Each structure stands twice: as C-alpha cells, then as structure tokens.
C-alpha cells in the first residue's frame, strides 16, 4: 500500500497535556479517508499539525515519501496540501476568478492577465460543474457553490491531498450530493482526501477508510466496509450507545397548545396553519430557503407577518421577543454563536439572560447573584452541563454540545410552553446529540409543545410525533407516526420537500 502521508508516533502536547498522543496513521494515496471523533478528540489539533499551524511535540511525518516538517501553513500549501475549512477562506467581495488567483495572477507585459486567468478559471469551474461566469462575485453564490470555489482554488494549485473539515454543515442536501460527486471525481483523478465529519452516514457513503480518534488517540481504523454506524459510535464514545435516539417517554395529549392560523408574509411564508398538542414534538422539514427558519422567526416576533395569528396556551401572541417570551415561547436559534449566546460572558449570565428581570431587587433592580448562581447550578445538574466555574467560565470555552445546553437552560429558566428548536444539533457531536434529543423528549413529556426544525431527516423521523414539510414558504405535506408503524415514509417526506424544486 503506497502511503501519501504517514504519521509516525505524532504527539502534540499543550502545557504537558496531550491533545494528540502517539498517533501513527497512514493515509494511502488515492483514497478518501474519513476521520471521526467527538469534539475534543483531537481532530482539529491533528489537522493543525498536518497543516503546519502548530509543530508536533514529538513524532515524525512523511509526505510523498519525503520527510515532512512544516514550520508554517505556507509549507503545507507548498507541499501540495489544501484545507477546506468549515468557515471558508474566501473573499466574498471579490469574484471567483480573483479568489482562485488570489496568490498570483498570470502576467502579460507585467500586468495581470485577466483573460488568461478567466480561461483557466472557466475550465476549473466546468470540471466542478459550477455554472457561473468567473467574474461572478463570491457573495452572490450559494454556500455550496462557495465551497466548490474553494475546491477550485485547491485544484488550481494542483494539490495531492485535500482535507475537508466538516464541509457539509451549511450545505443543503442537494449541495451535499454535489459535493460528494466532486470528491468522488477527485479520487478518480488520483487525489487523496481526508474527510472529517460528524455525519457518520456520509462518512460511510463517501470514504474508503475510516480512522476514529478518541482522547487524542487512534482507537480504531480500517476499510469502511468493516465499519457499521454502530461500530463507529462505539469507537468514538468508548461505550455502547444502544440507539441514536432515546425512546419517547410519553405520548402527546389530545389538547391543542399551539395554534398557527393563516400566517402569511408575501415572499416568505404563505397561509401557514397547523397546531401542536401538549406533549407533542412536531418536526418541520424543508430545504434551505424553504421558509422553515423564517417561520420560526415570525413565531418569535423577529420578522413581520402580514396576516394570520398565533395562539399559545389560549392567548394570541404579538409583539417582539420580549413579549413572546412572557407569552411562553422559547427560541433556540440555528446559529448559537451569533444569536444564542454571549460567548464571552460566563455561563451563569447566559443562563439568566432571558429571565434577568426576575433577579432584580428594589427600585434600582439590584441583581440577586445568589439566585442567579443557584439557577445556574440547578441547570448544570439538570442538563449535565460540563463546566467548572459557572460564574466565571465564559461560554466560549465550552464544547458545542455544552454550549447548546446552556442555550436550552436559558430558555428553561423562562418556563415556556412552546420550544422552537431550529437545527439544535448542528455542530454537536454524537454523544451530545443524544442528550439534546433526550431533552426534547423531556420538554414534551412535561406537557410542552416542541417545534423541531431540521434538515436532517434522520433526527426528525427518530424523534417527532408528526413531521410537516415546508416547500417554498408553504406547508406541502404532513406525516404522522402511526402507533403501530414506528417509522415515517422517508421517500414520501423527501419527495414532498423536493417537489417542484426538482420539476
């Protein structure tokens, strides 16, 4: 087996604590190798070592048969390694062409030769099946297309190894399919790919080999054929996880708690009518741009709505977020960093944010920090948030799953009746995902209504009592989980989501 990249007993320590320890791994030439592991397992550190961002504490690397010890990211680039990060490295205000040639234009009479550059770029774009002019601005491209531009950049530099770090987090299912075709194409051309992802089914579908990291060590490795989802999870978390989803602990009652009637906003949503019962988890499935997140924002009073009404626990709700919170709505947004958390504030302050008014004492509103701490401590135990000093530790230093639990704790403190969860498990690892599902179940079992918005069909079919499909701002279909038939009709769900888009 010809190895393109070999790691020999690579260790990276931070102040004596190993983030990667004694890792020996061979990346065979021309294969797609999936690397999986929970947050904190050492994947990012490993990639930083390969990419020349940080030097290894011990151990050696060989690339293309020669010793490889990059001192800076430029060395990795020069050797023929490209990184496609979660957050893309593009200048969105520049054109595709400018981005591809950002490090150096072809020259003619000492000037940049845009025409020659355009020809090259066009060829690259055709190879990746991007139907855009090279002069199109990157900001006018969809997220998936941007990623392909990043790949075009890499191909232009004729790289041997392309490393993808969670590439599908912001892609629609269709864009994901396209990305996988491109990656397969790269393999056919003889290029080598390292693919890091939390989505195990993708890893299974795409990769030739799988390597599992846990606590900085390589704990399992082999051809993908030997790996079922169960083995991947077992290796990642080091214990048996009987199922991806917790069992639902209670059936929904017959009593309607939330009622949306004829919500319409031109160009956004059209005549949205549905109800959620007490104890029900209602799934909302749709592609990006189908209006699902926009509907959530309308529910929470963040976006205007022209017509229709929303009733929660017998009361018509109106006004902005402040009024909606006191009317019993909670909104776990899809991007917790931008909309959910004060990243640099301590955990306790984040938990009390939505209910801070209740901590006020006297006419000045003096903060009762004892109560705040008590609430935070209770939430920590209740949701098993892994954080040491709640009053001092900033949320930024928590892992993704624990951050998400802090967001949920914040809303639990407000004792809402309707929980809107928008992509609550995005960027969260398998173990924490399970905990978030269990939380959704608990919220429902306590007699609340849960609106679970997701683009991952598995989690919707795994957790919801009912799933509605949104398409172009309308609810186009609804699916019930029959008591005797525990599974949804996945094909029908997908068909409803893609309808018209395909046609």
């Amino acid at each position, binding site marked *: 087996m010809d190895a393109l990249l070999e790691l020999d007993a690579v260790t990276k320590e931070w102040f004596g*604590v190993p983030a990667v320890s004694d890792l020996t791994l061979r990346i065979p030439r021309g294969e797609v190798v999936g690397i999986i592991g929970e947050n904190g397992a050492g994947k990012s550190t490993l990639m930083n070592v390969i990419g020349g961002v940080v030097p290894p504490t011990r151990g050696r690397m060989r690339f293309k048969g020669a010793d490889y010890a990059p001192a800076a990211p430029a060395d990795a680039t020069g050797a023929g390694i490209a990184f496609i990060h979660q957050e893309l490295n593009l200048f969105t205000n520049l054109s595709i062409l400018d981005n591809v040639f950002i490090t150096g234009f072809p020259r003619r009479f000492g000037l940049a030769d845009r025409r020659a550059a355009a020809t090259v770029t066009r060829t690259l774009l055709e190879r990746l099946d991007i139907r855009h002019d090279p002069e199109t601005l990157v900001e006018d491209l969809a997220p998936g297309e941007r990623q392909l531009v990043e790949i075009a950049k890499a191909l232009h530099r004729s790289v041997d190894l392309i490393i993808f770090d969670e590439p599908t987090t912001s892609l629609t299912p269709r864009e994901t399919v396209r990305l996988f075709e491109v990656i397969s194409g790269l393999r056919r051309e003889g290029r080598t790919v390292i693919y890091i992802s939390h989505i195990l089914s993708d890893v299974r579908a795409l990769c030739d080999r799988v390597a599992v990291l846990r606590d900085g060590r390589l704990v399992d490795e082999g051809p993908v054929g030997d790996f079922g989802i169960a083995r991947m999870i077992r290796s990642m978390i080091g214990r048996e996880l009987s199922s991806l989803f917790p069992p639902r602990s209670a059936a929904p009652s017959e009593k309607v708690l939330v009622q949306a009637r004829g919500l319409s906003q031109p160009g956004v949503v059209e005549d949205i009518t549905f109800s959620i019962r007490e104890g029900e988890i209602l799934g909302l499935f749709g592609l990006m741009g189908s209006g699902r997140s926009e509907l959530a924002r309308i529910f929470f009073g963040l976006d205007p709505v022209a017509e229709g009404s929303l009733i929660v626990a017998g009361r018509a709700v109106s006004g902005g977020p402040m009024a909606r919170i006191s009317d019993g709505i909670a909104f776990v947004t899809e991007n917790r960093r*931008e909309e959910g958390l004060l990243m640099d504030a301590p955990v306790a302050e984040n938990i009390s944010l939505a209910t801070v008014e209740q901590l006020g004492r006297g006419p000045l509103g003096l903060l009762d920090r004892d109560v705040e701490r008590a609430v935070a401590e209770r939430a920590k135990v209740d949701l098993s948030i892994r954080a040491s000093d709640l009053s001092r530790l900033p949320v930024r230093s928590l892992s993704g799953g624990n951050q998400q639990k802090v967001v949920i704790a914040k809303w639990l403190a407000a004792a809402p009746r309707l929980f809107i969860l928008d992509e609550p498990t995005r960027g969260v690892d398998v173990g924490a995902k399970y905990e978030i599902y269990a939380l959704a179940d608990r919220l429902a079992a306590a007699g609340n209504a849960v609106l679970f918005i997701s683009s991952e069909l598995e989690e919707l079919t795994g957790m919801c009592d009912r799933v509605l499909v949104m398409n172009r701002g309308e609810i186009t279909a609804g699916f019930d989980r029959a008591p005797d038939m525990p599974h949804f009709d996945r094909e029908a769900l997908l068909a409803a989501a893609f309808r018209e888009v395909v046609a």
Partner: protein
Amino acid sequence: MTYFGSTGGLPRPAAVKGAPAGPDAVAPADPGKPGSRRQSDRLGAILLSDYFVLYLSLFYVAVLIPFLPTLATPANMSNVLSNMWPLLVVAVGQTFVLTIAGIDLSQGSVAGLTSILIAMLLATAAPAQVLGHTPIWGLMLTEAGGPLAGVAYGTWLGIGIVLAVAALIGLANGLAVAVLKMPAFMVTLVALIALSAFAIWLTQSNNIRELPADFVALGKGTIVSLFFGDQHSAQLPRREVHAFVTWPMIVAVSVAVVAHVLLGHTVFGRRVFAIGLNRRAAEISGVPVVRIVVLVFVISAVCAAIGGLLYTARLETGRPTLGGGNFLLDVIGATVIGGTSLFGGKAKILWTVWGVLFFVLLGNTLNLMNLSAFHIDMVKGGVIIAAAFLDVARQRLRRGMG
C-alpha cells in the same frame, strides 16, 4: 458595528492559549503547570486585576518623584484631584456608551452647550458692549443678567433645565442609533459639529461671566481643607491651605458610585453588557435593546452636562468652546486606558476611575516638565496607543486563562 467576541477575531497564537486551538477546543482540564508558569501567573494576575491602572499610576508617580519633586507637593496633589473630578463624570458617561460597543463623540459639544446655557440662565449681569450683538441679547440675556438671576432656587432650577436639555440631546442620539440604526460614530459626530457651532453662535464665541456665588461654589466650594504650614502661626497663610474634599469631588464620586452600581450590579447594567457582547443574541433573549441603547445615550449626555457644569463653575465662566480642543481625547483616552473595550461588553466604572487618574497625572506631570501643549498631546497620543496595545494583550491573556 463590531461586537467584541462575536467575531473570530485575530488568529490566536496557539502557544498563548492553555488549550488546543480550533473548534475542538474544550474547557482546559486545568493542565498541570510547569513551575515557570507560576511566575507568569502572578504577572498575569496583576495585568488582569481591576486595580492594574492604579498600580500603573502609583508606579508612574514613584518613578517620577525623584525628578519632579513638585509632583508630590500638597498643592500639586490638590490640583491633580481638582482636575480629575469633572473629567471623571464625563468619562463615566462614555463608559456606558462604550459598553454597548457604541461611542459618543458629542460629549464635548454637550459640555460646551451646557456651559453657555447655564451661564445664560444664571448670569447676574452682562456687558452690552461684549454680548449686545449676540442672538440671545434681549431674548435671554440683558444688562441685568439672565432670566433666572435673583430668582429663588434659580441656580437649582437652571441646573435642572440644563440637564433636561442634555437628556433630550442624548435621547435624540439614542433614537437615531437604536431606532434608525445609524452608526453611533456618525450620529454623535454630527451632533458634535452641529452643537458646538450652535453654542458658539449663541454668544458669537464670547464668554459669559458674572455667575452667582452659589453656582460658583459648586466648582470651588471646599468642605475639607488640609493645612501643611506652621501650626503655631495665628493666621493660616492662604498658600498653604489646600482643598481636599470639594463639591466637585462629592458630585463626581456620587456619580461614579451610582454608575458603578448601575452598570455592575443591576438588571439594567446586565442588559447593557449583553447588548455590547452580542446584540442579536440579547434581542432574541428578550433584552429591550432600543430602550437600553436610548437610556445609555441619555446617561452619557447627562454626564457630559454635569461635567460641563463643574468646569463652568470652576472657571466662573460660561464658555461655548469648553468641550472643544482635546477634551474628547481626554475622555475617551482615559476610559480606554482604564481597560474599557472599544468593542463593547467589557467595562467597569472602577477602571474608568483609574484611567482618569492616570490621564490627569500624565497631563499634570508633562505640565510640570514644562513641555509645550503640542508635546503633551504627542505624548498623550502615544500613551493611548500603548493602552490600546495593552488591552489587546490583556484580552489574549484573559482568554488563555479562561
């Protein structure tokens, strides 16, 4: 607007951090520290202390005393303190605005307008040959002084009116920023230009003197004086009696204490920080963003007006250009040196107190060195840059320790 913390920020050098870089970084499980780290921990603790700038000030004084013996004289100390109070009040207001990642450039013009308005209202007499051609002559001001001259409780009424005007200016600033979503920098820059011009136009750039005694006492009134002369002389020689506790001190310390409680220990303050840390998250979590932002700009303008009143009383003169020149530099410079971040979400009134102390000491010592005004400003500029750098360094350290 930029919010501290919500963006990725600078590439973080991994060696500074105590945990692996990148999205996989989890709370560092208190790594076993090698011995060399303990010393840097102690240094870090000083750097991160709330009293850091106070230490810096004391160190600065200690270093300079051998070269500038006048620095430690009671007369000079009394002078430093009296320079500190008005600036502190204004800087406290600025601290609130910086906390929401805003900025208030209009404070200087508010102070200037305040100065001219209060003098206009309270003046006990006015010379026609100086002010006779101004637009306010006959309307507000005559030979017999302003409309509140000789009125019972006129001084307090005048102060109330002036503070209300300042509050209205702050309201306008706040509404433009919060409701019209205009950048604070632009809104308050326009207010600065327009209000300064208005204040100067009112008196055609003339000063108004002849302020009533009860108002002037506000700027100079001494409650406790210290005497350092010969105890046995029957009469106290004026030169050796130094004001220590003064009305400006009482006012400034009261404002600072109230502000400290408000910003650090109330629901309101918590919301101010939330907006500065992440405005979108704050809004979605039910923080009444518009109301808080407007209130913050009102606080800033009212603080600027109180500062303006203290300066006016001390100078015994209503001066339209009071907040001109480098006033803004002093206010923002002192606040930022204290440690308040221009990116919002990181501030403490205590820091601002030390920042003002340091800034006033800096100006004072440069004066004692007989440097020209130009040199003084050049050095002050350099110090602000150094403070900005220190702020970045402290921030990095804080993240590393978190």
